[in-house]
């Protein structure tokens, strides 16, 4: 806790393995409300698994994960849904429902989870799509969108329920630097305007420097460094220093 706020997300000695392969080993960290954390690390070090553990798409083998004081590791059914309502998730490939239009992708959770009228849903969808620059594309199918547009549509869907916590899995992967910067801008604006807690998995150190209040570095399932960008740059751990020094 650095800004006096309670942690929005807290990992306490979390371990996770798939079969014989240990993905996360005894990992502990927390992020205060309204801050942005970027998780860096080489491929296959458990970054995406960390996000899936937060939203309870995966369960840890050991340890506890708290979202706003709620222990999510053992939650099921309606109580888990209540916690998930606080979280928005931008998947690496956006994971838009390919049988629905962009509008329907955003309207679906609103129709099922809120009491809003059709008119209110239309207004909200239009507003969020406008924020991500897709106001004119709501009738398109996901297959008609470019990579950057898909990411922005995925981001809009993640934001449409006005989450307190936004998880983003490699939001800039496969995008050119300009489009990646636009996505970073959207994330920063969301944080500034709505005090949303951001947890971003990325390989883009340039983006991490812009977005992150703190950086977590994972390597071989262990948290090898955490702190501000400057602190991690001067970390004693060589892998962490090298990661922060790459693609600046």
């Amino acid at each position, binding site marked *: 806790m650095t800004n006096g706020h309670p942690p929005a997300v807290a990992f306490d000695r979390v371990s996770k393995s798939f079969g014989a392969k240990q993905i996360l080993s005894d990992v502990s960290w927390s992020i205060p409300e309204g801050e942005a954390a970027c998780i860096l690390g080489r491929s296959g070090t458990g970054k995406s698994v960390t996000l899936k553990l937060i939203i309870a*798409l995966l369960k840890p083998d050991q340890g506890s994960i708290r979202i706003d004081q709620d222990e999510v590791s053992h939650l099921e059914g309606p109580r888990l849904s209540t916690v*998930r309502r606080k979280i928005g998730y931008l998947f690496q490939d956006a994971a838009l429902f390919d049988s629905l239009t962009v509008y329907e992708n955003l309207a679906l*959770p609103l129709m099922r989870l809120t009491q809003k009228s059709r008119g209110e849903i239309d207004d909200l969808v239009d507003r969020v799509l406008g924020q991500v620059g897709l106001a004119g594309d709501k009738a398109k199918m996901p297959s008609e969108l470019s990579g950057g547009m898909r990411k922005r549509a995925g981001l809009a869907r993640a934001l449409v329920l006005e989450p307190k916590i936004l998880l983003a899995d490699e939001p800039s992967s496969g995008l050119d630097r300009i489009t990646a910067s636009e996505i970073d801008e959207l994330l920063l604006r969301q944080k500034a305007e709505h005090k949303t807690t951001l947890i971003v998995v990325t390989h883009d150190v340039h983006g991490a420097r812009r977005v992150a209040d703190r950086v977590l570095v994972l390597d071989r399932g262990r948290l090898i460094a955490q702190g501000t960008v400057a602190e991690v740059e001067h970390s004693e751990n060589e892998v962490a220093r090298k990661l922060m020094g790459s693609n600046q």
Partner: protein
Amino acid sequence: MTNVFELAGKVSLFGLRAAVDSFRRPFEGEQIVSQLAEIGSKSLPLVIACGFALGAVMTLHTRSTLVMFGAASIIPAVQALAFFLEIGPLVTGLLVAGRVGSGIGAVLADMRATEQIDGIESLSIDSFKFLVVPRIVACTLALPLLTLFMDFSGLAGGFLSEFAASRLSLQLYISQAFSTFQWANFWPPTLKTCVFGFVIGTISSFFGYTTNEGAQGVGKAATSSVVASSLMIILLDVLLIKLIFFIFPEGAL
């Protein structure tokens, strides 16, 4: 062998969960209607074409033998009984297992591979209830209706074949076809296809929804769905016929 029993147990639990969830709110009416259109309407041309061709061919095959024994007049009745009792339900089940089963398996497996199912879960939506239950309910409702289309198109094909050979009138063909027909020949075989539909929906949804092999799993799920559904339909057909004869002994000819 243990694996087969383990798989059968998992599929049974999957089907049981779907059956229970289908009576739990929200009832997913919109999704069920959309799946009925996908499964029912889009299978209709195939079912009708197949029924018509089978009906015509069956009459061609049986006619020569029955004429030899001076029993040409029972051709319509044979045709009707064969279609309503067995050919209609079984062939419709196998056709739907091929067309719809593979589709359900592939679509759900693709949604799993592309994280769409995780996406639904992350939005606090129960993906099982949203994706699986409507498909199983739609299969269960669509099969009896498709079977009726198969039965009547089989009779239509049979009539045309018979008309070409003997100029038998439509009125006479229909009256002869249903002269020995009882309700016990109609309801139980038609309604048993609800079980076929449930089995097709459950097995194909299971293979698609539970896959974790990425893109490779899509093809595997489609193939496994068709093979397992078809096999189960054939096995269940035998069991259900015995059960129908037990409950409706007048239907046992």
